[in-house]
């Protein structure tokens, strides 16, 4: 599996678009989920994911190791999401349109999903980022420290604060 991935990254570096397409196919799920979690909108997430892969394609020569592609692409999308949120701070409420969309998508457990997503969107982008990287992408603390370029202690305290904030938001919803 790793060898195959290494081969695809290596060939993509040489400009092979087929190999790069395979890389997109493999990583689009993780990258898209992260962008969606950060931005809370499908269209915006799609834009950012496209931008991330295009950026990756043109900067592949700067990738330090073929084996580091997964972390590298996640760093790119993560930074793009933060940039976008800084440029266009979001109105932190879930729109009616979005509520209808979600309800149609998720017939079961609708209340839980909307509430959780709403609560996530109330957090700061940095808090959302660490929760998504850890709980959805499955990164360990050390990997997150390297990916975010922050000390390990910062990851620990930030994730702790993020979870407490999320818990508070959901408790507000229960009241």
């Amino acid at each position, binding site marked *: 599996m790793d060898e195959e991935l290494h081969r695809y990254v290596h060939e993509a570096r040489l400009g092979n678009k087929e190999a790069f397409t395979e890389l997109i196919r493999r990583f689009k799920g993780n990258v*898209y989920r992260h962008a969606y979690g950060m931005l809370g909108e499908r269209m915006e997430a799609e834009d950012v994911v496209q931008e991330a892969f295009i950026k990756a394609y043109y900067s592949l020569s700067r990738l330090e190791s073929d084996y580091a592609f997964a972390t590298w692409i996640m760093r790119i999308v993560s930074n793009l999401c933060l940039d976008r949120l800084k440029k266009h701070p979001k109105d932190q409420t879930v729109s009616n349109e979005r509520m209808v969309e979600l309800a149609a998508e998720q017939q079961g457990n609708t209340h839980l999903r909307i509430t959780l997503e709403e609560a996530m969107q109330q957090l700061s982008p940095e808090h959302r980022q660490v929760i998504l990287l850890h709980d*959805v992408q499955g990164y360990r603390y050390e990997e997150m420290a390297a990916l975010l370029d922050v000390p390990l202690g910062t990851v*620990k305290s930030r994730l702790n604060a993020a979870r407490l904030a999320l818990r508070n938001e959901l408790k507000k919803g229960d009241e």
Partner: protein
Amino acid sequence: MMDHPIDWLSAYIDDELEADQRQLIEDHLQHCESCAAVVHDMMELKAQVAGFYLTIEPPLYLEQQVIQAINNKSSIDSWIRAWFAVPLAGILCLVTLWFLFGPILVRLVSALFKFVLAAFYLFSNMATSIPSVFGTVVIIAVMLLMISGISLRRLLRSTMQ
């Protein structure tokens, strides 16, 4: 008894603590209901977040869109390169010609200028000394001007429609 180790609870549920720290937390949790409740909530939240976001699926056509965008960008870049390359090549040609044939070119241009000047002088003399030639030239010039005006008007009308 330690104070509430609220800052360590997240690392505890993620199994990111040293063995001695972990033991301290476990001892504390056995008699602290509020911290135990936070740990319980955090574990539940962790599972909910994973459960929700892992069901989000990316668009099926994403890779085609990205490759299409890369192809478009490549063709635009090559056009831009071509548009820069053509004038650059022209300037380079002119500079090379100047270095190779500079003095000859100066003589050629000055000779051409003298010739044009002489032709103009000759033509103006002919036009003033022979009135019929002058009249014919003026009529032809006016006709050409009118035809150009009519053509331009028709062209503008057809493009507006």
